């Protein structure tokens, strides 16, 4: 099946290893990615939306309209892009007067939002179109009971009125897909806590992230698995900052879901860019006999 990938800003520049992991791993489960020229920032659901909501709708609608020309659904791989494109796509489909206001602007560049496709996070496509069983069948080197703390992040699941992916209070989707790689998804009291990245006052996200890291450290997990580059920022790079700032010692590797899947399909750690992470996952790779 054909899908139009929307990788956004962070995954194409700051974390290209995630884009590489998606492209490589989904090719083994029958997903064909059709690239579209001319996408811009989704735009950013926090600060751009805070600046001017109508302009936020407009830039997002322009991006969606490019995919509509080809007639395939957009798959998103960043929770921020998911938040923006899913909400704008749904709201503009539902609200005729807003759609007209946005289309009047898009007319300036000869584009129109039609409302003819859907926007879905890539893991939703794995579950619903491909099937967890088929994902499991693509695994050649099961991740031998690797204990992975699940981190859902906010924008895959909420607002559920828009996302319609899973129960936001009892999600299963990422658990099922982690199990498909042979790893063991581990839940804890703060599995669904936000990473706090959007807060202006640093002390709020600092304490949120430390509480999550403290909790999963006590659980004895080997790494954290997630699906959002912003959450990754909060737990990987920031883990080093927090260790220094608050005299902590964590060293918990943070791994994007499609990197886990890629490893299980037989890609080398370097091929999915694990060597680019601040917290090196070498101990778990040794455990999986993936490092010389």
């Amino acid at each position, binding site marked *: 099946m054909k899908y139009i990938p929307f990788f956004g800003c962070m995954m194409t*520049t700051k974390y*290209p290893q995630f884009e590489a992991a998606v492209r490589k791993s989904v090719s083994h489960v029958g997903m064909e990615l059709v690239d579209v020229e*001319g996408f*811009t*920032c989704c735009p950013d659901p926090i600060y751009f939306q805070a*600046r001017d909501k109508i302009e936020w709708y407009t830039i997002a609608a*322009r991006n969606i309209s490019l995919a509509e020309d080809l007639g395939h659904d957009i798959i998103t791989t960043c929770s921020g892009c998911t938040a923006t494109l899913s909400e704008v796509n749904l709201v503009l489909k539902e609200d005729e007067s807003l759609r007209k206001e946005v289309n009047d*602007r898009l007319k300036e560049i000869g584009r129109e939002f039609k409302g003819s496709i859907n926007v879905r996070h890539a893991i939703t496509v794995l579950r619903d179109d491909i099937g967890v069983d088929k994902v499991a069948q693509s695994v050649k080197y099961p991740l031998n009971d690797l204990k992975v703390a699940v981190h859902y992040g906010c924008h895959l699941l909420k607002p559920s009125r828009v996302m319609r992916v899973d129960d936001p209070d009892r999600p299963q989707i990422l658990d099922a897909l982690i199990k498909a790689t042979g790893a063991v998804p581990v839940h804890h009291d703060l599995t669904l806590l936000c990473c706090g990245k959007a807060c202006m006052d640093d002390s709020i996200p600092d304490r949120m992230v430390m509480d999550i890291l403290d909790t999963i450290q006590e659980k004895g997990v080997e790494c954290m698995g997630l699906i959002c580059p912003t959450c990754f920022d909060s737990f990987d790079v920031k883990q080093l900052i927090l260790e220094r700032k608050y005299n902590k010692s964590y060293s918990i590797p943070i791994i994007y879901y499609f990197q886990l899947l890629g490893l299980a399909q037989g890609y080398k750690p370097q091929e999915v860019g694990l060597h680019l992470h601040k917290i090196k996952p070498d101990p778990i790779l040794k455990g999986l006999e993936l490092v010389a």
Partner: protein
Amino acid sequence: MSPTKNDPAIEKFDIQFSFREKLNSVAEGFRHNYCYQCGACVADCPANNYDEHFNPRLIMLKAILGFEEELLGADSEIWNCTNCYTCSERCPQDVRPIDVIIALKNLSVLQGNAPPIVGNIYNSVLQTGTTTKSSSLVDRRRKELGLSPLGSYPIDEIQKILKVD
């Protein structure tokens, strides 16, 4: 933290019902009118759990009563919202407090009181089409990972559909 007669924030303001009209004029701002102050949005709000000064119910109350300066001023608590959307899940009145908070942010921007990052992100999209910068290091990493080089961004189209001052 419920407002009481002893709360100085409550005592020093006159109620400004006209603020409702202003909030109604921005996208999704009208939703604050649906709030009946049940407080369902508070218990699972992570920003509230980590900083009691951030309270979505009180933000809705201040909107209803017209505490414009406090909500839209440079130090407003609205900028500590995590944008997690849990309040939208809990609200029985479809207020969607997060969407009202975003509407308040839009008004704060108009008054020039938003944190610098808001303008920085906006200008970056306006001028480059993206929020992150490319570099020779990015190009090299993409190549090593087997990815094609990044294309150019249609900045002219972006500038045409945004209000260029």
